[in-house]
């Protein structure tokens, strides 16, 4: 069965409320909200089945589908594959949690798919600490994906710390672009 849903960006952000992942991986398991949500499969909030029939996205909206090639569709939520973080934090913020969940669901519906989560940090702080921090970021993303039904063997992690920046400036904006986890489909 095709799961084709159109939702608005507004609906997405509403759905994200009350579903924060805490900084430490261990505490993720304490969140009843997260596990309850995981059991509900693809039925994330904001479903507007009626509007999906036309086959075009609402203005400002994104397509949600877990078809095999959905990850390459610029209109699909799965096209976004980078999660950004605050300084010295491994908290997956409200801005990215829904996107990560969609990738988790995609993995659960596509058992042959696998991702590598590449953790990165900005240049501040020490190199080895940043490798450890960036691994925790990738682990936090992995935890969310697991709750959405992805298999442990579908997700691998590598942490590059601050060794592989995408922005080479030393300003706040460059550094915020470098604090990230990249979701790389294999």
């Amino acid at each position: 069965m095709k799961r084709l849903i159109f939702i608005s960006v507004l609906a997405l952000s509403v759905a994200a409320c009350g579903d924060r992942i805490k900084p430490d991986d261990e505490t993720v398991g304490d969140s009843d909200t997260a596990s309850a949500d995981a059991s509900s499969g693809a039925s994330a909030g904001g479903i507007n089945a009626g509007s999906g029939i036309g086959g075009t996205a609402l203005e400002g909206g994104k397509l949600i589908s877990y078809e095999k090639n959905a990850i390459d569709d610029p209109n699909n939520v799965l096209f976004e594959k980078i999660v950004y973080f605050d300084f010295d934090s491994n908290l997956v913020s409200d801005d990215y949690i829904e996107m990560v969940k969609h990738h988790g669901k995609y993995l659960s519906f596509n058992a042959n798919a696998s991702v590598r989560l590449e953790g990165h940090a900005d240049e501040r702080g020490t190199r080895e600490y940043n490798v450890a921090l960036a691994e925790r970021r990738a682990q936090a993303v992995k935890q969310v994906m697991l709750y959405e039904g992805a298999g442990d063997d579908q997700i691998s992690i590598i942490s590059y710390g601050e060794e592989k920046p995408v922005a080479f400036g030393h300003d706040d904006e460059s550094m915020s672009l470098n604090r990230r986890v990249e979701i790389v489909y294999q």
Partner: protein
Amino acid sequence: MIKKIIIGLFCLSFTSLAHAVLKIDITEGFEGALPIAVIPFQWNGAAKVANGDVSAIVMSDLARSGKFSPVAEKDLIARPQKLADVHYKTWRIAGMDHIVIGSVTKQADGSYQVEFRLIDILKAKQVLGYSFSATDKTLRAVGHQISDYIFTHITGLPGAFSTRIAYVTLKQDKKSYSARLQTSDTDGYNPQTLLTSDQPIMSPAWSPDGSELAYVSFESGQAEIFTHNIRTGVRKNRSKFKGLNGSPAWSPDGKKLAMTLSKDGNPDIYVLNLSDNKLKRITNHWSIDTEAVWLPDGKSIIYTSSRSGKPQLYKQSVTAKSKPERLTYEGGYNASASISADGKSVAYVHGEGNVYRIAVLELATKSSRVLTDGPLDESPEYAPNNSMILFASQEKNQAVLAAVSVDGRQKQRLAFTDGEVREPSWAAVRY
């Protein structure tokens, strides 16, 4: 009396004798440094070898140590070539404590005989004198050896000019990434590349005998720890567990490596026994534990842990079960310790707000002082004789190596001419 010493040919491949990769500028301060005059050595029977200007090498070494303030060549009040030519009173009036004179003489077989004498002006006599045999290729090594003799004689500290430093260089842009693990003389000359990779290389650390480097390489697509013999080139994979394999640190006896592994879920410190590959877990905490370094007795380590919420330094026994002792309290970011050879002081990265500086903590008194200005100073590494601390710094958007004297008064920059340079490690002895 002049003692005779033969310097053997170092079996290194001298890839670029003509071009030093690191350029060293002394950027700040000479207060409290000892005045010394190094008279340009006289060359007999041969023109001065451009990269083997022995007296210039000695002068630069002594200046970089932070303990000496050599007179600039243009300001020399006299240029005696022989002991008999030294006019003590003139030098005394000029406020000079010591002068160094010497010569380089070409021999019939093409080699050089290098002589130097250290003269104590107040005692009005020669206090040190040696003669060395050298070739074109070992003239620099002789210069560093002379520096070590002079440094040790005057300061009582072991010299560290003849050893090697290791560092990682990087050329990167949006399309390409090329990391190199390099070693060089302590003044940046005679660079050698040990490893080139299109993936990151991190955390080089010299073995206590200076024969091997431990480091992290991502060449396989995952971080793995290697040890690499610099002379034989023999490389051994020491750790490739799932997750992190990082922060290798040699035990003082060279028989173990402390490292950070996340194979059991969280980054924790482990100690690997190199002879039988037995792994011992040292820390077990849900937070980040990493960047372990050994105290000289080999019984304890100091490491970075975020167990209090922010990275701070902790000390813990590796031989007995014990609770970690927290060492740093000031500021929200204290990490990446380097311990002085006497085990009394710890250099580390101290972050406050967006500024990261190098600080030193005295273990006995728990007092700390900040030595550098930031804004992004990291990877502190004590010189083997404790006289200064090498670190990586960001200057005008370029990553450079820098050094600061342990009193913070003298700073110097070791600029890499091409690309970035980072993570210095200074060998205790020359292998």
